Protein backbone atom coordinates (compact mmCIF):
# COMPACT_ATOMS: atom_id res chain seq x y z
CA UNK A 1 0.00 0.00 0.00
CA UNK A 2 1.54 3.24 -1.12
CA UNK A 3 1.97 6.12 1.28
CA UNK A 4 1.51 9.62 -0.05
CA UNK A 5 3.44 12.13 2.05
CA UNK A 6 0.83 14.84 2.43
CA UNK A 7 2.55 18.07 3.38
CA UNK A 8 -0.36 18.85 5.70
CA UNK A 9 -1.40 15.51 7.17
CA UNK A 10 1.77 13.45 6.97
CA UNK A 11 2.23 10.16 5.15
CA UNK A 12 -1.14 8.58 4.48
CA UNK A 13 -2.21 5.39 2.71
CA UNK A 14 -3.26 5.58 -0.91
CA UNK A 15 -6.91 4.83 -0.17
CA UNK A 16 -7.34 8.26 1.44
CA UNK A 17 -6.71 9.77 -1.99
CA UNK A 18 -8.35 10.11 -5.34
CA UNK A 19 -6.15 10.09 -8.37
CA UNK A 20 -6.20 12.41 -11.34
CA UNK A 21 -3.18 11.49 -13.41
CA UNK A 22 -0.63 13.66 -15.13
CA UNK A 23 0.13 16.94 -13.36
CA UNK A 24 2.57 18.11 -15.99
CA UNK A 25 -0.27 19.23 -18.26
CA UNK A 26 -1.76 22.60 -17.45
CA UNK A 27 -5.10 23.97 -18.37
CA UNK A 28 -4.46 26.38 -21.26
CA UNK A 29 -5.61 29.92 -21.30
CA UNK A 30 -9.13 30.23 -22.69
CA UNK A 31 -8.02 31.49 -26.08
CA UNK A 32 -5.24 28.95 -26.58
CA UNK A 33 -7.28 27.08 -29.12
CA UNK A 34 -8.57 23.57 -29.59
CA UNK A 35 -5.21 21.87 -30.03
CA UNK A 36 -4.01 23.15 -26.68
CA UNK A 37 -7.14 21.92 -24.94
CA UNK A 38 -6.90 18.63 -26.78
CA UNK A 39 -3.40 18.14 -25.45
CA UNK A 40 -4.47 19.13 -21.96
CA UNK A 41 -7.31 16.66 -21.85
CA UNK A 42 -6.00 13.76 -23.94
CA UNK A 43 -2.29 13.74 -24.63
CA UNK A 44 -0.16 11.99 -22.04
CA UNK A 45 3.56 11.37 -22.03
CA UNK A 46 2.79 8.40 -19.79
CA UNK A 47 6.40 7.77 -18.76
CA UNK A 48 7.78 4.63 -17.26
CA UNK A 49 9.67 6.15 -14.37
CA UNK A 50 9.19 9.46 -12.62
CA UNK A 51 5.77 10.95 -13.07
CA UNK A 52 4.28 14.12 -11.74
CA UNK A 53 0.65 13.50 -10.87
CA UNK A 54 -2.36 14.83 -9.00
CA UNK A 55 -3.68 13.12 -5.90
CA UNK A 56 -6.59 14.60 -3.98
CA UNK A 57 -6.41 13.99 -0.27
CA UNK A 58 -10.17 13.71 -0.16
CA UNK A 59 -10.31 11.82 3.12
CA UNK A 60 -7.79 14.13 4.72
CA UNK A 61 -7.16 17.81 4.14
CA UNK A 62 -9.06 17.96 0.84
CA UNK A 63 -6.06 19.34 -1.01
CA UNK A 64 -4.90 18.42 -4.49
CA UNK A 65 -1.29 17.40 -4.12
CA UNK A 66 1.28 17.28 -6.87
CA UNK A 67 3.11 14.03 -6.22
CA UNK A 68 6.35 12.85 -7.79
CA UNK A 69 6.02 9.12 -8.06
CA UNK A 70 7.87 6.47 -10.00
CA UNK A 71 5.52 4.44 -12.16
CA UNK A 72 7.94 1.53 -12.29
CA UNK A 73 8.90 1.23 -8.61
CA UNK A 74 6.07 3.18 -6.93
CA UNK A 75 8.70 5.10 -5.02
CA UNK A 76 7.46 8.55 -4.00
CA UNK A 77 9.92 11.40 -4.07
CA UNK A 78 7.75 14.17 -2.72
CA UNK A 79 4.39 15.83 -2.63
CA UNK A 80 3.54 19.49 -2.72
CA UNK A 81 0.35 21.25 -1.82
CA UNK A 82 -1.61 23.10 -4.50
CA UNK A 83 -0.63 26.65 -5.39
CA UNK A 84 -3.66 27.99 -3.57
CA UNK A 85 -2.27 26.86 -0.24
CA UNK A 86 1.27 28.02 -0.73
CA UNK A 87 1.02 31.58 0.52
CA UNK A 88 -1.04 30.50 3.49
CA UNK A 89 1.21 29.82 6.38
CA UNK A 90 0.13 29.85 9.94
CA UNK A 91 2.08 31.76 12.49
Amino acid at each position, binding site marked *: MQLIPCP*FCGARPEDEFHYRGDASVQRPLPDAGEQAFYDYVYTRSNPRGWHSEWWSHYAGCGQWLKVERNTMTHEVRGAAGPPA*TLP*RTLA
Partner: protein
Amino acid sequence: MSASDRSRPESALAVFERPRSLALLIARKDKADRLAAAIRASFGLDLPPPGRWVTGAQVDATWIQPGGWLLEGEPSAPGAFRALVAAAAEGLGAAVDQSSGRSVIRLAGAPARAVLATFCRLDLHPRAFGPGSAAMTRVAHVVCGVRLADATPSFDLIVASTYARWLIEELLEASARHGVRFEPALKPYRSAMPASGPM
Protein backbone atom coordinates in the same frame (compact mmCIF):
# COMPACT_ATOMS: atom_id res chain seq x y z
CA MET B 1 -3.43 -8.19 21.13
CA SER B 2 -2.51 -7.84 24.76
CA ALA B 3 -4.03 -9.90 27.52
CA SER B 4 -6.09 -6.99 28.79
CA ASP B 5 -7.87 -6.69 25.47
CA ARG B 6 -8.93 -10.26 25.65
CA SER B 7 -10.73 -10.03 28.95
CA ARG B 8 -14.31 -8.90 28.54
CA PRO B 9 -15.51 -6.76 31.38
CA GLU B 10 -19.19 -5.92 31.18
CA SER B 11 -18.77 -2.71 29.27
CA ALA B 12 -15.20 -2.00 28.52
CA LEU B 13 -16.31 0.56 25.96
CA ALA B 14 -18.81 3.34 25.75
CA VAL B 15 -20.12 4.80 22.52
CA PHE B 16 -22.24 7.92 22.52
CA GLU B 17 -22.98 10.96 20.43
CA ARG B 18 -21.95 14.32 21.84
CA PRO B 19 -24.33 17.18 21.06
CA ARG B 20 -22.24 20.10 19.88
CA SER B 21 -22.62 23.34 18.02
CA LEU B 22 -20.30 23.19 15.05
CA ALA B 23 -19.12 25.66 12.47
CA LEU B 24 -16.58 25.25 9.74
CA LEU B 25 -14.30 28.24 9.59
CA ILE B 26 -12.47 28.71 6.30
CA ALA B 27 -9.96 31.47 5.80
CA ARG B 28 -10.24 33.56 2.70
CA LYS B 29 -7.32 33.77 0.34
CA ASP B 30 -4.16 35.01 2.07
CA LYS B 31 -6.05 35.88 5.27
CA ALA B 32 -5.31 32.89 7.48
CA ASP B 33 -2.93 34.81 9.72
CA ARG B 34 -5.31 37.69 10.25
CA LEU B 35 -8.14 35.28 10.82
CA ALA B 36 -6.11 33.48 13.48
CA ALA B 37 -5.49 36.79 15.19
CA ALA B 38 -9.17 37.68 15.07
CA ILE B 39 -10.15 34.36 16.58
CA ARG B 40 -7.55 34.78 19.27
CA ALA B 41 -8.97 38.19 20.02
CA SER B 42 -12.56 37.00 20.17
CA PHE B 43 -12.21 33.62 21.84
CA GLY B 44 -8.77 33.64 23.42
CA LEU B 45 -7.94 30.61 21.35
CA ASP B 46 -5.00 29.85 19.08
CA LEU B 47 -6.20 28.11 15.96
CA PRO B 48 -4.24 24.85 15.92
CA PRO B 49 -1.73 23.81 13.28
CA PRO B 50 -2.22 20.72 11.10
CA GLY B 51 -2.81 17.53 13.02
CA ARG B 52 -3.87 19.24 16.25
CA TRP B 53 -6.93 20.36 18.13
CA VAL B 54 -7.30 22.71 21.09
CA THR B 55 -9.93 23.34 23.68
CA GLY B 56 -10.82 26.78 24.91
CA ALA B 57 -13.13 28.30 27.47
CA GLN B 58 -15.88 28.99 24.98
CA VAL B 59 -14.91 27.14 21.82
CA ASP B 60 -12.75 24.26 20.74
CA ALA B 61 -11.00 24.18 17.41
CA THR B 62 -9.83 21.28 15.28
CA TRP B 63 -7.61 21.62 12.24
CA ILE B 64 -9.42 20.35 9.17
CA GLN B 65 -7.55 21.62 6.13
CA PRO B 66 -5.09 24.38 5.28
CA GLY B 67 -6.88 27.49 6.43
CA GLY B 68 -9.83 25.49 7.68
CA TRP B 69 -10.95 24.59 11.21
CA LEU B 70 -13.95 23.06 12.83
CA LEU B 71 -15.05 25.28 15.70
CA GLU B 72 -17.13 23.78 18.39
CA GLY B 73 -19.20 24.94 21.30
CA GLU B 74 -22.00 23.92 23.61
CA PRO B 75 -25.40 23.33 21.98
CA SER B 76 -27.26 26.59 21.42
CA ALA B 77 -30.13 28.05 19.45
CA PRO B 78 -30.11 27.37 15.68
CA GLY B 79 -27.57 29.50 13.89
CA ALA B 80 -26.36 31.22 17.05
CA PHE B 81 -22.98 29.57 17.17
CA ARG B 82 -22.33 30.13 13.51
CA ALA B 83 -23.27 33.76 13.91
CA LEU B 84 -20.83 34.09 16.77
CA VAL B 85 -18.00 32.66 14.71
CA ALA B 86 -19.00 34.59 11.62
CA ALA B 87 -18.89 37.81 13.57
CA ALA B 88 -15.37 37.06 14.71
CA ALA B 89 -14.28 36.11 11.22
CA GLU B 90 -15.98 38.97 9.43
CA GLY B 91 -14.21 39.76 6.17
CA LEU B 92 -11.47 37.22 6.81
CA GLY B 93 -13.19 33.93 6.35
CA ALA B 94 -16.45 32.08 5.96
CA ALA B 95 -18.24 30.44 8.85
CA VAL B 96 -20.57 27.67 7.75
CA ASP B 97 -22.95 25.94 10.13
CA GLN B 98 -22.29 22.22 10.53
CA SER B 99 -24.18 21.65 13.76
CA SER B 100 -26.48 19.28 11.92
CA GLY B 101 -24.00 18.35 9.27
CA ARG B 102 -21.48 16.53 11.37
CA SER B 103 -21.83 14.23 14.31
CA VAL B 104 -19.31 13.92 17.09
CA ILE B 105 -19.18 10.38 18.36
CA ARG B 106 -17.23 9.44 21.42
CA LEU B 107 -15.60 6.06 21.78
CA ALA B 108 -14.16 5.62 25.24
CA GLY B 109 -12.56 2.74 27.07
CA ALA B 110 -9.40 0.74 27.35
CA PRO B 111 -9.91 -1.28 24.13
CA ALA B 112 -10.79 1.83 22.10
CA ARG B 113 -7.48 1.79 20.25
CA ALA B 114 -7.82 -1.86 19.31
CA VAL B 115 -11.38 -1.29 18.12
CA LEU B 116 -10.44 1.71 16.02
CA ALA B 117 -7.52 -0.16 14.51
CA THR B 118 -9.97 -2.56 12.92
CA PHE B 119 -11.14 0.10 10.47
CA CYS B 120 -8.83 3.05 10.70
CA ARG B 121 -5.37 3.05 9.19
CA LEU B 122 -3.95 5.80 11.41
CA ASP B 123 -1.22 4.87 13.84
CA LEU B 124 -3.00 5.53 17.15
CA HIS B 125 -0.20 4.43 19.44
CA PRO B 126 0.36 7.06 22.16
CA ARG B 127 3.79 7.74 20.70
CA ALA B 128 2.29 8.62 17.35
CA PHE B 129 -1.08 10.07 18.40
CA GLY B 130 -0.75 11.73 21.76
CA PRO B 131 -2.76 14.39 23.58
CA GLY B 132 -4.01 17.12 21.28
CA SER B 133 -3.73 14.97 18.16
CA ALA B 134 -6.39 15.23 15.50
CA ALA B 135 -6.51 13.85 12.00
CA MET B 136 -8.86 13.68 9.09
CA THR B 137 -8.85 10.15 7.72
CA ARG B 138 -11.12 7.24 6.86
CA VAL B 139 -12.89 5.20 9.48
CA ALA B 140 -15.08 2.26 8.45
CA HIS B 141 -14.75 3.41 4.82
CA VAL B 142 -16.11 6.91 5.41
CA VAL B 143 -14.31 10.21 5.76
CA CYS B 144 -13.92 10.93 9.41
CA GLY B 145 -12.07 13.18 11.82
CA VAL B 146 -10.35 11.43 14.69
CA ARG B 147 -9.20 13.16 17.88
CA LEU B 148 -7.69 11.88 21.05
CA ALA B 149 -9.96 13.32 23.72
CA ASP B 150 -8.32 11.92 26.82
CA ALA B 151 -5.97 9.19 27.97
CA THR B 152 -8.70 6.65 28.88
CA PRO B 153 -8.32 6.55 25.91
CA SER B 154 -11.32 8.36 24.51
CA PHE B 155 -11.58 9.28 20.88
CA ASP B 156 -13.92 11.70 19.17
CA LEU B 157 -14.97 10.63 15.73
CA ILE B 158 -16.34 13.44 13.61
CA VAL B 159 -18.36 12.21 10.71
CA ALA B 160 -20.94 13.46 8.22
CA SER B 161 -24.21 13.16 10.09
CA THR B 162 -25.73 11.05 7.33
CA TYR B 163 -23.05 8.46 8.02
CA ALA B 164 -23.34 8.66 11.81
CA ARG B 165 -25.63 5.69 12.09
CA TRP B 166 -23.37 3.64 9.86
CA LEU B 167 -20.36 4.51 11.94
CA ILE B 168 -22.10 3.74 15.21
CA GLU B 169 -23.24 0.38 13.90
CA GLU B 170 -19.72 -0.41 12.84
CA LEU B 171 -18.34 0.68 16.18
CA LEU B 172 -20.81 -1.45 18.04
CA GLU B 173 -20.06 -4.46 15.92
CA ALA B 174 -16.33 -4.02 16.30
CA SER B 175 -16.68 -3.48 20.03
CA ALA B 176 -19.12 -6.27 20.73
CA ARG B 177 -16.66 -8.79 22.03
CA HIS B 178 -15.16 -6.28 24.43
CA GLY B 179 -18.51 -5.43 25.92
CA VAL B 180 -19.94 -2.08 24.92
CA ARG B 181 -22.49 0.37 26.19
CA PHE B 182 -24.30 2.61 23.70
CA GLU B 183 -26.13 5.70 24.76
CA PRO B 184 -28.58 6.98 22.21
CA ALA B 185 -27.65 10.38 21.00
CA LEU B 186 -29.20 13.63 21.96
CA LYS B 187 -29.47 15.78 18.92
CA PRO B 188 -28.05 19.26 19.21
CA TYR B 189 -30.57 22.09 19.86
CA ARG B 190 -33.36 19.76 20.93
CA SER B 191 -32.99 20.95 24.46
CA ALA B 192 -32.81 24.52 23.27
CA MET B 193 -36.09 24.29 21.38
CA PRO B 194 -39.02 26.29 22.68
CA ALA B 195 -41.32 23.95 24.54
CA SER B 196 -44.38 24.96 22.55
CA GLY B 197 -43.30 24.67 18.99
CA PRO B 198 -45.48 25.34 15.98
CA MET B 199 -46.32 21.69 15.55
